[in-house]
């Protein structure tokens, strides 16, 4: 029991989880941090989606749990105890197998936690399962199959094959020629602001479906073809988007802006940024799909992605001048608040002022035009989700919108810090 839980109307969920978790003891230590709490990813990948399921069990959702559900929540975790202990034991074995195989790529918790939970259900506790070490080794091999440079090489081989060049170029031409340029009413749809008002606290799933049915994301893309609009969003360096090249090379550093990336660069970026290639299609289908995607509204294939781009555009409004900005929605206010905290945090961390003369130009542009860096990162996230076949639902939107700004901010801090470390080399 974690310090006395006072008999009040509601109890912090984190306290209940910590309490129940402590009762599971050392058996779950591999899933715990050094303070004995479940790891952040234990909660995110195991407890939430597989044990507590707050999206289905509303009583287990939110920061506090009503006192009448306290016992049920504790029981849910304790009932899962044996499965979690077995998951932890499998995780140890899988890590050992990974070490033996010399694999260092990817995050072990992201890669194996849910696989270990499956193994726990298929085989029980590995200490009493026959051939556990072999099973663990196979699981590692399976997760890591079809990864690595081989795939990028095959992609490059496919797009640079002279016999296919004409065919791919033709496909790209016709995809862009077929783009509908119907005049759409570009007045902002009121549903977007309404959705942003509640997406952080209680997303409106019906409204989300309505936005999709009315193809609001597609309609919002119409303006992108007007002069300077897509450039103002930071999605291209050109006056208007033009058809991409097929491309034959790509490098992790200095990728062009999303709409200026070649087909090769778009796929390459997704291959290297995200470590879940097994859920992607085969190379020819990926390339053809990417060609069609490039000609689609927001250069994304799914309506849900396009709506999320429109939402992100509106939620990021004013980030480039947060002091004057008047929030247009709750989500907008939250992002503005994160960004205005960031300037204090950067001073506390004694990071360089991005406006300083010798800060690299691209870094300065990204910090001072954070709204554009934000939409670029959001586009890349949505693009990655499409390639992996991950649907974007109403409940995912705020995590995406907020997570993208956090990721942009953290990335900028790393770059600011590195710009100082490089300073010595220039002197």
């Amino acid at each position, binding site marked *: 029991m974690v310090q006395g839980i006072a008999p009040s109307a509601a109890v912090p969920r984190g306290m209940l989880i910590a309490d129940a978790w402590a009762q599971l003891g050392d058996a779950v230590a591999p899933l715990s941090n050094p303070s004995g709490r479940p790891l952040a990813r234990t909660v995110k990948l195991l407890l939430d989606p597989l044990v507590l399921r707050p999206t289905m069990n509303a009583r287990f959702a939110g920061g506090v749990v009503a006192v009448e559900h306290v016992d049920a929540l504790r029981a849910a975790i304790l009932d899962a105890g044996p499965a979690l202990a077995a998951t932890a034991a499998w995780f140890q074995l899988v890590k050992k197998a990974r070490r033996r195989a010399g694999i260092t790529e990817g995050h072990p918790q992201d890669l194996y936690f849910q696989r270990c939970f499956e193994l726990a259900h298929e085989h029980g506790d590995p200490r009493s399962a026959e051939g556990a070490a072999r099973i663990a080794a196979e699981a590692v091999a399976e997760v890591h199959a079809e990864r690595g440079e081989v795939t990028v090489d095959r992609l490059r081989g496919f797009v640079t094959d002279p016999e296919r060049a004409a065919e791919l170029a033709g496909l790209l031409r016709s995809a862009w020629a077929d783009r509908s340029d119907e005049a759409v009413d570009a007045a902002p749809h009121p549903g977007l602001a309404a959705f942003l008002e509640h997406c952080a606290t209680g997303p409106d799933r019906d409204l989300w479906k309505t936005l999709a049915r009315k193809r609001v994301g597609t309609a919002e893309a119409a303006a992108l073809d007007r002069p300077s609009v897509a450039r103002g969003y930071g999605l291209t360096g050109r006056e208007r988007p033009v058809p991409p090249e097929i491309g034959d090379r790509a490098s992790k550093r200095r990728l062009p802006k999303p709409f200026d990336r070649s087909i090769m660069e778009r796929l390459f970026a997704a291959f290297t940024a995200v470590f879940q290639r097994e859920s992607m299609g085969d190379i020819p289908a990926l390339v053809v799909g990417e060609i069609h995607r490039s000609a689609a509204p927001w250069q994304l294939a799914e309506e849900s992605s396009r709506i999320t781009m429109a939402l992100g555009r509106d939620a990021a409004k004013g980030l480039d001048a947060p002091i004057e900005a008047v929030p247009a929605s709750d989500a907008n206010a939250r992002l503005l608040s994160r960004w205005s905290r960031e300037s204090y945090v950067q001073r506390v961390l004694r990071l360089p002022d991005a406006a300083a003369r010798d800060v690299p130009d691209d870094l300065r542009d990204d910090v001072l035009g954070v709204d554009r860096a934000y939409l670029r990162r959001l586009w890349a996230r949505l693009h990655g989700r499409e390639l992996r076949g991950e649907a974007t639902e109403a409940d995912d939107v705020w995590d995406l919108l907020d997570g993208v700004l956090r990721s942009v901010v953290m990335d900028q801090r*790393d770059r600011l810090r590195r710009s100082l470390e490089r300073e010595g080399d220039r002197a």
Partner: protein
Amino acid sequence: MTEFAIEREGPVVRVGPERPHPERTALVEARGALLYWDVLDPRSHPAALYGDGQAPPVHPAAEIHDLDLAADWLWEIYGPEAAAAILSGAAAIATEADSPVLQAARKLADLRWIEAWWPATHVVTLSAQAIGGPRAREGLPPSYEAVVPAPSVGLLRAEAACRTAEVEHLLDDDEAVERALDFDPAAITALESHPVLGSDARDLADELADLAENYGVVLRTSPAPARPEDWTLAAGGDTGAGPALAEGEAPVDWASVPQGLVDIAGQARWSLTHRGGASVITVEVPAAPKARDATLTARIGGAGIALHHDRDTGMFTGEAQAPQGFLRLPTAQRTLHVYDPAFATGDAGADPDAQARRDALIVYAYQRVLASDAGLAIEAAAVGVDLP
């Protein structure tokens, strides 16, 4: 006992005082809130920080912007009762609750503060009275020269990575541990063979290896750092100058330079001399202990002067021809202003509190150096171990 008032303004709930000045802020970015300790808070006396556990816990002030997210962990920082009070709209809290998570959060904040603002200096004159604390004052003359050594950044980051892992469940950044592990561990490797601190260093190395495996991070390795004799020395070359026609000095605004370049207690000096028929302004800024190479800019009377690190003299030095009419400028316009153009715009206004705050932080840091258990990085610096 910590007693904090609670203020609620719109969606923001503030527990305790407002954010301190960035230079004296030890910060943790938690999910849904900023937690901050004021480094100059009297309760933050070194004995309370890495002491023997006798001192009462020092709770952070908080700026909570998402109460629902913060509910998950507030009880670990303030105790269940104070957390319930914060969540239920109370106007104040009082708490004595302590927990390993609170201690880890505080140490993490402290390590990050040291990395950013630790005021290393080759020499600073302190009064024994300022030092305070009976143990520190014992046997000291009323005024004396002290050294605040620079801790190893590698050791600080190593300790910070371990503390980060202990509080990862309440941090805003879901990749905080991975990010914290992205540093050069050469300092720990070097310290492992030390007769006194070696065993701490080996424990730290083991802990980091475990973390690296659990988070899929390959710890960086780097070639051995350059030894001082490998560096080419900058040319000295101020021979032949006549006596100074004018000179002056000014402190360096440490918010205008990155950590680790400038001796925090040193004064930047300028002088004007005649040499070969020309008036030349020469500027010298004492470099911090273990300063790396960089180029600073000095501005005085409309002239901009690049200052290069001279490892031979331990100074950033540079010179330039004096602008026309320099000697006729009023003294106020002959104020020397030093900044790093890769760090600041050089337009910072004067801050009347800067000097007092800096002096207080130097005294605080010196107390930390004298304290018996100040954390591995400070201890290693205090005993003079040379580490990257």
